[in-house]
């Protein structure tokens, strides 16, 4: 009998609808299933609590609650969550800060589909 491994649940957080749709459309990892999207940090916390995703892609520059604070909150709720920060903020200090607060990877915007999928694959390899 084959053991069926359930897919990992993915939450996409970005204030841009285009980016949310782009990640949803482009992610081709067969281990991932999108369970929700959120447009700011506060909404992300609510949906995160409700859907309990295993993986989160997270923008940093957002209204309501920014991504850095959101990383910390998500890790408080579930220390095992895998967080890929997807942000235009290209300075090294911001990436280091995000990782220090609990993120597991950083992908700089703009990105290609290939870069997105490589970043997600790398994130899952470390899981």
């Amino acid at each position, binding site marked *: 009998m084959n053991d069926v491994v359930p897919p990992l649940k993915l939450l996409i957080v970005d*204030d*841009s*609808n*285009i*980016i949310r*749709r*782009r990640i949803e*459309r482009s992610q081709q990892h067969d281990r991932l299933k999108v369970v929700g999207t959120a447009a700011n940090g506060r909404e992300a916390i609510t949906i995160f609590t409700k859907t309990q995703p295993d993986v989160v892609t997270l923008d940093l*520059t*957002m*209204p309501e609650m920014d991504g850095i604070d959101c990383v910390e909150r998500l890790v408080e709720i579930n220390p095992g969550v895998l967080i890929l920060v997807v*942000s*235009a*903020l*290209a*300075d090294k*200090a*911001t990436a280091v800060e995000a990782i220090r607060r609990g993120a597991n990877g950083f992908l*700089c*915007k*703009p*990105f*290609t589909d290939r870069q997105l999928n490589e970043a997600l694959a790398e994130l899952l390899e470390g899981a």
Partner: protein
Amino acid sequence: MTVLSEAEIRTFVEGATHYFEVAARQPAAIGSPYLVTDGSPAVHEYTGVIGISGRRKGAVCFTAPKAMLMVLLMRMNETDTSDANIKDLVGEVANTISGNARRDFGREFVISVPSVVSNPQGSQAPVPTDVHSYVIPINWRSHSAKLIVCLE
């Protein structure tokens, strides 16, 4: 009045170049940047504005005509070309180029979330009038857009 250095202008030129190469998968031709000394630069139909605070203060705007933004959405495989998505895109371009500039300007170059204005013909950029603006012309396919950098 602060004048941007050549290296600072190059940061934004490279940001615009990189955006079109990666997001649109089709390079843009970037024209020679120029300084606007008399008032604010004119804008196209849609303008995404990023407020800058921290060590530098001012704004970075990306302004483009609707036709260009619609083609850009399609190049990104986005089928929803509604007005809401066009506004989202123009804000996201401004956000991405401004955020990428932190690679050179550092973390003290603090960017706001984007605000978007749809402009009647002949409108001027919503930037401080007491600071000179630099315009970086962007030509992509048959369309013209501008990146406007206005920093103290």
